[in-house]
């Protein structure tokens, strides 16, 4: 019997069975979404997107996912409201819960905020990214995309490169992809790698060239090139030269290797345009798949019984 999914706070909390279940649900949803149909598992329910940090694509993806399930969404941009008046995180969330929604999707710049809310609230909490900690739905959509393109995640060599130390995407991916049986290597300037990468259970290298020939999947991460980051990266030019996946370095890749990026891309920095837009790139598939896995997560936490019933009936309309 699979452990019940009450919240989705961290990929670290998911076991292989839960991950497999969510990806399976997403796969079942796929033909409906492609046909533009709604699966009314959230009919009459409201999902609040509680975003303490700016985001357009993730929030939109959650909104679309909610609506594809027949639910309603409300956006709460916390940076422009009560927080500025000095209200605490938990008080803000409790006020929202008092309005009767069925789920809170939270993004916050501070690691651990979704975990605090999950303990304080009576309704499901879904993490849409917390600081450098986790972004579990991103990792689920990445795993889904790899499965879809390469049939399976198991046994695959996955290279994640860029700012690993400050990436919630990398952290969540490491948890999920490892549980699905992949072997993972991270790469980037040592200034942007965690102090002990081995502790994450992954290999590491400082030079991309060392890792590319064995990679089945290459996941590029966005780097912050702003001036305040110049204590970690001397210049965009040097970054691109040593850690950007350009045409030359891409020649080292196996014929079937695929390239992922969580977006938004710094073209010419971590990915050259011809690589980002080339035949190996599955970046836009990731975006579509993001809707599917978020639908799966929302259905699983807001209406587990309805979802089980729907699946039992072979995925036919309720």
């Amino acid at each position, binding site marked *: 019997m699979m452990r019940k999914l009450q919240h989705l706070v961290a990929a670290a909390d998911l076991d292989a069975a839960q991950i497999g279940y969510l990806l399976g649900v997403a796969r079942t949803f796929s033909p409906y979404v492609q046909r533009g149909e709604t699966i009314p598992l959230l009919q009459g329910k409201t999902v609040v997107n509680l975003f303490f940090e700016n985001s357009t694509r993730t929030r939109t993806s959650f909104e679309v996912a909610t609506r594809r399930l027949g639910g309603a969404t409300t956006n709460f941009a916390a940076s422009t409201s009560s927080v500025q008046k000095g209200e605490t995180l938990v008080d803000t969330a409790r006020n929202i819960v008092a309005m009767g929604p069925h789920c809170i999707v939270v993004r916050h710049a501070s690691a651990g905020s979704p975990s605090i809310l999950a303990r304080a609230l009576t309704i499901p909490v879904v993490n849409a990214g917390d600081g450098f900690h986790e972004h579990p739905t991103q990792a689920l959509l990445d795993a889904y995309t790899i499965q879809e393109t390469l049939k399976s995640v198991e046994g695959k060599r996955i290279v994640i490169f860029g700012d690993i130390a400050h990436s919630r995407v990398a952290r969540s991916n490491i948890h999920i992809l490892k549980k699905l049986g992949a072997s993972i290597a991270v790469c980037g300037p040592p200034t942007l790698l965690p102090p002990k990468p081995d502790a994450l259970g992954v290999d590491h290298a400082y030079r991309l060239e060392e890792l590319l020939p064995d990679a089945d999947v290459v996941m590029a991460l966005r780097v912050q090139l702003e001036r305040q980051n110049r204590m970690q990266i*001397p210049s965009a030019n040097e970054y691109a030269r040593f850690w950007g996946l350009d045409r030359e370095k891409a020649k080292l890749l196996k014929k079937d290797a695929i390239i992922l990026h969580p977006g938004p891309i710094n073209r010419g920095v971590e990915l050259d345009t011809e690589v980002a837009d080339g035949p190996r790139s599955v970046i836009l598939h990731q975006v579509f798949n993001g809707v599917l896995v978020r639908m799966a997560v929302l259905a699983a936490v807001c209406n587990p019984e309805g979802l089980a019933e729907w699946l039992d009936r072979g995925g036919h309309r309720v």
Partner: protein
Amino acid sequence: MSEALLIQGGRIIDPSRDLDVPGDVLVENGRISAIDAPGKIPASRAARLLDARGAWVLPGLLDIHVHLREPGLEYKETIETGTRAAVAGGFTSVACMANTQPVNDTPYVTAFIREKAKAVAPCRVFPVGAVTKGLKGEELAEIGGMVAEGAKAISDDGMPVMNSYLMRKAMDYAKAFGVPIISHAEDACLVGQGVMNEGPLSNELGLRGNPAAAEEILVAREIALCRLTRCPVHIAHISTALALEHLRRAKEEGLPVTAEASPHHLTLTEECIRHYDTHYKMAPPLRGERDVEALRDALASGLVDLIATDHAPHGEIDKRVEFDQAANGIIGLQTAVPVTLELVHQGVLSARRWVESLTSAPARLLGLPYGTLQPGREADITVLDPEQSWIFSEDRVVSKSRNSPYLGARLRGRIKATVVAGKIVYE
């Protein structure tokens, strides 16, 4: 292609091969081709014979800490004059610090130094890239690009990186390119306006003091950051007894920390400053007797790995001024050998340890295939008469600058010949 050269009858000392024997060295096609007992290699094999009887035949000496001042400060020194002084002093390789104008903080400046040296220098030149842009201690320099152009280490020598976060990141970053960080370890804030070692003498002379603690704090910090990052860290011109104690503990712990001693810190004390002679003004400053003793012992035991000159040419305009206004540093390339050889004569150092500290130890630090007489390697050789005395007179100064406290002094130990890649470049 250089002609074959036979160096005959010298005492061959090569610590890299545990060698200290009388013998002959044959050089062919620019490489060491044979080392054998005296007279064993027929003279007919060489077009050129070099009589080394009574002399020491050593792997070419390396000085990993010089200031060549080019580009931008050519009135003090140029790549050409500085490297001519180097070979006159027995050095076959030098590493030049980044505090030029512009600073060597981009691949383009590194490439300029490399190309200029290729054109004019009689010895090998290895650029040291800056740690931070403009040596300002604010942003990382393009270390990867500089290493790709030939930089063998990085250092903000003379301008210690005071931001510990940035220094930590620099150490992290350097690991990707396999180069050590050389630290001029003095806490700039604590040094303040200090111009000599702080103590009773600075008080007596009315000069602002620069306390030993300034060096000890930064040496301790570099060690802590080395422990955190495991990046090789080299302490330039270490000079205080307590800093050596920090170093000893770090080495016992197995950290990749190394250090160098300068000839002046090994032989001179703050007493020299009594007459406000700016030729004794350095950074770090000359210290007291006990520090000098500790430094000599540390060099002898190998705690301090190597000798480096910190050759710092300055024009008259920089040095013939009030003591507190004067620039720091002295030229050292031509005097390093006799000045430090005196420690061998005095029995402080063994000959082997002395040679090691000028050959295999610095070569190892920068990952260079030199500092050895291994057959097959490029023939960089220094031939030295350890007994011959000479006077370091003005007309013998090859450097463009004359800022040396040894000017006019009688020195023991004279370079007979310097060979780079099989070619005699100084005789």
